[in-house]
């Protein structure tokens, strides 16, 4: 008689204080029935990965609007891999040009959401692709 609930972390790596998008998403995830951990801005990849472990989340959503996603997103996924975390889905959002998409997928991100994406489509993607782990 277990009662699994999806746990999601929204994190903002790097020197980027624009967190309105991240907060809107956190709110929208709450309304979708997930438990959402929000870490706040200015996080190092080390802080984020450590929080992922301590909070035992199923999904990590990274947000970066400063253009540093090319460095920061792979830094997070590499660190996760180094620590043997292979059961957390990572997705990313922000100002990400199309030519960077492949780089992001190669780094292990499963989806990229850019400006103009509807909240509904993100929730639909998560509900289809991420299940709370057993």
């Amino acid at each position, binding site marked *: *008689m*277990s*009662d*699994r*609930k999806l*746990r999601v972390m929204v994190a903002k790596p790097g020197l980027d204080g624009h967190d309105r998008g991240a907060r809107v998403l*956190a*709110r929208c*995830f*709450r*309304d*979708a*029935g*997930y*438990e*959402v*951990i*929000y*870490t*706040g801005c200015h*996080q*190092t990849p*080390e*802080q*984020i990965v*450590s*929080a992922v*472990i*301590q*909070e*035992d989340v199923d999904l990590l959503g990274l947000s970066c609007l400063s253009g540093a996603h090319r460095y920061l997103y792979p830094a997070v996924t590499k660190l996760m891999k180094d620590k043997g975390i292979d059961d957390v889905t990572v997705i990313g959002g922000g100002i990400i040009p199309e030519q960077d998409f492949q780089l992001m997928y190669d780094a292990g991100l499963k989806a990229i959401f850019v400006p103009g994406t509807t909240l509904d489509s993100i929730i639909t993607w998560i509900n289809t692709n991420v299940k*709370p782990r057993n």
Partner: protein
Amino acid sequence: METTKKIKGGDVRAASRLIRNLEDRVPEAKTTIKHLFPLTGKAHVIGITGSPGAGKSTLTDGLIDMFRKKGKTVGVLAVDPTSPFTGGAILGDRIRMQRHAEDPGVFVRSLATRGALGGLAKAVGDAIHVMDVLGKDIVIVETVGTGQQEVDIINHSHTVLVVLVPGMGDEIQAIKAGILEIADIFVVNKADREGSSKLSRELMAMLDMAPPSTFQGGWRPPIMKVENAFEPVGFNKALEDISNKIEEHHQHLVDKDIIGSRMRRKAVVELNEAIRASILEPVLQKLLSSGQMEGLIEKVMKKEIDPYTVAEDIAKRYLEGCL
């Protein structure tokens, strides 16, 4: 057994996974907690409660810092509310504590209330055990933002801090029953704001009027002031004083042999909850899955029968083993 060994060895991932499984009520987690239980009882559990926005998370962050400087390891369980409509939750206490994220001596875990009403999450008691076995010297439990009545924290803590801020009401508030009665230490936070001296005076008057027997072993809750968290020198000094006072309180519990009564209170609650969980939940489950519940709800709605008679009947059938 494997998980127990890992947690005893300090494995954070195993511990966070177990806490998750306890929250989600995965049956295997219950087996593990049975193995852990005999190993618990070493940590000093500190409860921090107060109204939303009073500064609980910021004080927790400051206390983590102080206890780390004293060479102690710290576990934090931070509770935030679950939406009664969607079941979702935003767990934001961590934001104020992220500077400790990389310190292996600190483990911060957010929990959602999931419908529990006493200011905590149902799994908090078990999560404290996990932190304890993991080897954390100090376990800080931060409640949801509380009002007047959410006092469950006393059942789980050795030392309770009630955090207050100026401007929350008149002097009648200070003589009401509830949350003000559970403090071992009062913290008047944001004390650089107008009204803090008045608040301290009211608390003092409230304590002056309390019968001396309410002060267990002669411990009169001190009133500690904390000013602006953005002024590090003064803030750190205030936090250092509070952390010393917390240790003093723990020593007091030990010296005056009161710690036993606090452990007893926890044991009573744990036993009550465990009995309720093993009796009530399977009964409700059975009534639901067999469809009997729906019929009973219908009858109560139409006033054909009252809920009290139904409950007595179910209890009787349960005790006779013919549910």
